[in-house]
């Protein structure tokens, strides 16, 4: 059995990701390997490239260099005239994206659909799950994130915290292999942060593989198995939460941790 775990491909692997906006190089070669069950927090000051990196992983952003693999399957990429890399295979990328949950800072629920419709949309349209089954699964998920009573409400009628929990339920409905969180609590009023972090914490305890870009330092420390500190488009520090928070080798990371206590 031990040898089995070694032969399993990593859940998500990214090699040498480069990204530039115009002449500004935002990512200068970032590599990351996430094994099943790992929770990796990505920290750094704004402009360090952490959100861009996360968005490159499911090609919401087109990187200029690099390799990405999900569960050992390489993303098929082609180069555009402007030098950026986009998917070379529309069928493959939609399939891979369906297995990578992405939670946005601004929730991005579809406002013309009810919460339940938001959650069943992708299972029904993309996974071709029978509607009845999708509804049953969606109701269980809404129960899990604590907003079952809001199933027939529209997103505009919910608080920010409720909307983000609905967005997490929408992501979970696709039964993704990896979950990517892009500053999930940054757009929330302070009193709503905890309810969202509780949900994310529950997912971590289930053993889900997650990448988390956040400014919630204490939460990152508690929930993560590994922490990355990004600075100026590079990984400046990487290790266990205790090491990165208490004993970082990099002066910049030390300074960042001191100012975010």
């Amino acid at each position, binding site marked *: 059995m031990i040898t089995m775990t070694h032969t399993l491909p990593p859940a998500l692997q990214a090699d040498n990701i480069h990204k530039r906006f115009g002449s500004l190089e935002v990512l200068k070669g970032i590599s990351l390997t996430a094994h099943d069950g790992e929770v990796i927090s990505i920290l750094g000051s704004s402009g360090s490239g952490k959100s861009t990196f996360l968005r490159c992983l*499911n090609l*919401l952003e087109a990187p200029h260099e690099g390799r990405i693999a999900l569960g050992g399957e390489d993303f098929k990429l082609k180069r555009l005239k402007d030098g950026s890399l986009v998917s070379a295979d*529309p069928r493959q990328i*939609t*399939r*891979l*994206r*369906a*297995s*990578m*949950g*992405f939670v*946005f800072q*601004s929730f*991005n*629920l*579809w*406002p*013309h*659909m009810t919460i339940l419709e938001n959650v069943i*949309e*992708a299972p029904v*349209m*993309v996974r071709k799950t029978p509607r009845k089954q999708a509804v049953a699964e969606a109701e269980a998920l809404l129960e899990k994130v604590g907003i079952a009573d809001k199933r027939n409400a*529209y*997103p*505009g*009628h*919910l*608080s920010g915290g409720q909307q983000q929990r609905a*967005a997490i339920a*929408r*992501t979970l409905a*696709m039964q993704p292999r990896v979950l990517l969180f892009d500053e999930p609590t940054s757009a929330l009023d302070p009193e709503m942060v905890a309810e969202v972090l509780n949900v994310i914490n529950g997912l971590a305890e289930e053993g889900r593989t997650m990448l988390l870009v956040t400014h919630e330092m204490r939460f990152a420390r508690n929930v993560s198995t590994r922490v990355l500190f990004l600075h100026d488009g590079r990984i400046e520090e990487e290790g266990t939460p205790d090491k990165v928070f208490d004993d970082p080798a990099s002066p910049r990371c030390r300074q960042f941790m001191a100012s975010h206590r």
Partner: protein
Amino acid sequence: MSFDTGVILDNFPKLLTGAVLTVQLVALSGLGGLALAFPIGIARSSRRPWVRALPWCYIFFFRGTPLLVQLFLVYYGLSQFSAIRHSELLWPYLRDPYWCALIAMSMNTAAYIAEILRGALQAVPRGEIEAAIAVGMSKGQILRRILVPRAVRIGLPAYSNEVILMLKGSALASTITLLELTGMARTIIAETYMPVEIFLAAGACYLAISFLMVRTFKLAENILNRHLRHAR
């Protein structure tokens, strides 16, 4: 000056048949224009320049020239080509002022609706599209399930405005012999020499029609945009 209500009452049935034709022209050209506008508007909002070019030309022409000129071009212009006069498929329609008016009005309004649609498509927040991309929806699914339903809701008030403008534009169909509301009013005036009474009555008919249209669109808006009601 005396005001003769009797002449209005006597000729009201005639005006009503004109009004029915007006409503028919506006409703059918509104639907025809809408159907035409979808491919034009979607192509117009494409990021590829060569896809955008043709709808751009179409919109440039139909917004840049008067509806009256377009009506004349279809009604008088097309019949100059003997190929059209001898076409068994086209001539039965193009010799008929009713069809000419419908064609010109549909094509004209399609240009405006396409621009409304383009604006509405571009007004859909990027994040909602990214959310659809991120769950693995294909381009076609995103268009059908997210973009178009959102754009229809965003563009509906502007579209209702365009239909009202078309209602008034339909008066031009009287210039190619159609006896819609304005055409009928002028015919009655030619017989009665009572322009004030008859034009007032015709104006009242236009008001009534536009009132009903506004109410209908308001109802549609309330149903389609119920997610905005009491929104935070």
